[in-house]
């Protein structure tokens, strides 16, 4: 954050605090506070959401020519801001790296991590944070120059492979070589920017890393179209938003923001058609639009929170296409991130009641 932004934010906090002091005298506001958990109350008092994502990574979080953050992670943050405020711009996005992001969740410096470190048992159980639900499935893959005419990871042999010397990536690579009786010369890098530069300079024949990251690197190379990400995945990893432990209401706000994005895609509700669906007759669409049942208020949101989200950022598929689709110049297939009914793994419970059935 720049000093300018910081001082603006500080002034805003002082104003907000003064505003609350006045309002707190009224019974109506006391009730409102009582229904907001600590995180939601702090966000409302501050006037905007603080949401973190990947440190700058094309497709997930990048600064555009106007100095604004865009990307898959940013869009999820905008969706949460829309759910809370009805306004996706009431957001301060921060790109964080390393497990420092979890420390800032714990201290309350940030309200939610949109999607960054993959969901593992260690992270889910030892840092006083909770993963909410899967939002992006990934796996370690290989990228090679297309001039090598390699179409499958099983063809890789006697090659120099660049890989990060950290986490499980090197272990996954050596396991894969061992199982397939292939020989690689591994060239290790501590830093992923260095790894990308090395591959760009042709210091290795192939690079192995999570497919989402390979796609981001490919966009930064001189001729993205002359690079191939091979179809095999040699590990599984799943990413999703994470929140500070101990505030169930906030956990559920983030959870149902994600589920709303997914349910909207499944029901065919898009940013462009949502206004024309007001006369829809199916129960499912009427529930999504807040015209039947009332699902947001139980967690401090408005009955039409899904409409606010989708009107602002679109549904899950629209967010995916905006950031990874063919128009981005580096198309990524939906693959595992397609809806469950289209062969992928993206799934959400429904925005509905339970009634008396099971």
């Amino acid at each position, binding site marked *: *954050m720049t000093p300018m932004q*910081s001082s603006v934010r500080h002034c805003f906090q002082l104003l907000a605090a003064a505003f609350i002091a006045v309002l707190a005298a009224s019974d109506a506001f006391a009730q409102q506070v009582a229904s907001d958990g600590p995180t939601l109350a702090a966000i409302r008092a501050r006037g905007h959401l603080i949401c973190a994502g990947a440190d700058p990574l094309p497709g997930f979080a990048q600064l555009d020519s106007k100095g604004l953050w865009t990307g898959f992670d940013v869009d999820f943050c905008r969706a949460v801001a829309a759910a809370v405020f009805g306004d996706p711009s009431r957001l301060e996005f921060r790109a964080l790296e390393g*497990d*420092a992001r*979890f*420390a*800032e969740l*714990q*201290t309350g*410096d940030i309200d939610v991590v949109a999607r960054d470190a*993959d*969901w*593992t*048992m*260690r992270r*889910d*159980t*030892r*840092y*006083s944070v*909770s*993963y909410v639900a*899967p939002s992006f*499935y990934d796996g370690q893959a290989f990228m090679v120059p297309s001039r090598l005419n390699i179409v499958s990871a099983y063809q890789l042999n006697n090659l120099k492979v660049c890989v990060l010397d950290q986490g*499980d990536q090197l*272990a996954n690579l050596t*396991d894969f070589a061992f199982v397939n009786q292939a020989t690689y010369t591994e060239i290790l890098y501590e830093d992923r920017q260095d790894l990308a530069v090395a591959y760009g300079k042709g210091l290795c024949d192939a690079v192995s890393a999570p497919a989402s990251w390979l796609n981001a690197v490919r966009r930064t190379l001189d001729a993205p179209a002359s690079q191939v990400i091979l179809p095999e995945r040699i590990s*599984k*990893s*799943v990413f999703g938003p994470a929140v500070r*432990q*101990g505030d*169930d209401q906030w*956990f*559920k706000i983030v*959870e*149902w923001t994600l*589920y709303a994005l997914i349910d909207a895609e499944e029901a065919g509700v898009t940013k462009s058609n949502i206004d024309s669906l007001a006369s829809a*007759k*199916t*129960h*499912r669409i009427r529930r999504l639009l807040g015209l039947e*049942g009332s*699902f947001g208020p*139980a*967690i401090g949101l408005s009955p039409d929170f899904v409409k606010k989200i989708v009107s602002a950022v679109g549904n899950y598929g629209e967010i995916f296409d905006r950031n990874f689709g063919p128009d981005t110049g580096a198309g990524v297939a939906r693959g*595992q991130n397609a809806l*469950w009914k289209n062969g992928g*793994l993206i*799934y959400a*419970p*429904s*925005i*509905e*009641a*339970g*009634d*008396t*059935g*099971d």
Partner: protein
Amino acid sequence: MFGRAAAVLVLLLLSVVPASAARLDDVKTRGFLQCGIGAGTPGFATIGPGDAWSGLEVDYCRALAAAIFNDPQAVHFILSTTEDRWQSLTSGAIDVLARPSTWTMERDTAMGVSFVGTLFYDGQGFLVKKGAGYASVNDLENQSVCMQANTTTVLNAEDFFATNKIGYHPLTFASRAETIQAFLDGKCAAYSTNAAGLAGDRSTFATPADYVILPEIISKEPLAVAVAQGDDQWLKVARWVYFALLDADELGVTQKNVDELVGSDNSEVKRLLGLADEDFGTPIGLTKDWAYRIVKLVGNYGEIFDRNVGPNSPLALSPGLNALWKDGGIQYAPPIR
């Protein structure tokens, strides 16, 4: 803004302080788990000779008990009804609700509970009599469909038939038993509820082979386990027991081969079985061999599925969405690492 160094220090301090541990401590002190189940749902919870419960939801609770007590029998099964199940959780009368309940927004946000994970991905289907000429839902044009009144089943059917412009006659009955009886009496061409429920009910008919479930599934019904909200440690114990069942299945670790795999070089298998350097169980109040206990004493997810509801069980359900993600289904768990 908080300095990064200070923030990291806080991270380290918080890391060693266990989360509030009320429920897990209570369960350990009591010496057994109190598990809420549904009454007599074939494949999910049925009682056999010697009052022995069996079924998918029963086995989930046995896995949880195995992880905590190294004893899958350290469970008291408590019948919960559709009406009292949420209150049983929030009052503390049960520690976990395994009775299959569709995970919906209202239940997740307004009942004081949190969902743990989807034990069985289900959806609404239609049961018809074989040889009656119904091969798909399209063939039910102008026919009667028996359903239980005041359920989401009725609303889903309305949506489906309206969207697909198929005329039909809904016939609703107050109870499930009355609904089934009406169908068996020939009052309807089809009986509609969740597919697992159809298969379970069919297994109780005099001649199950005379009935078939149509291929169309018209809704999504994730049948999930739930706990009372407000206890993160307990939620994570319950959730990682579910994940361990899936991870074991994915790694090919079964009740039969688990002891042979103790010498495995596979680092994922070693972490699952508590044989790696890192201890994943103790930080959530379990033991290092917590997942070994689950597989050894109860089996992995696929084994539990096959035993209770799979193709060779009386329910004869194909895995479908409940296959692992790598086998065409959507059952998926984050890794133990």
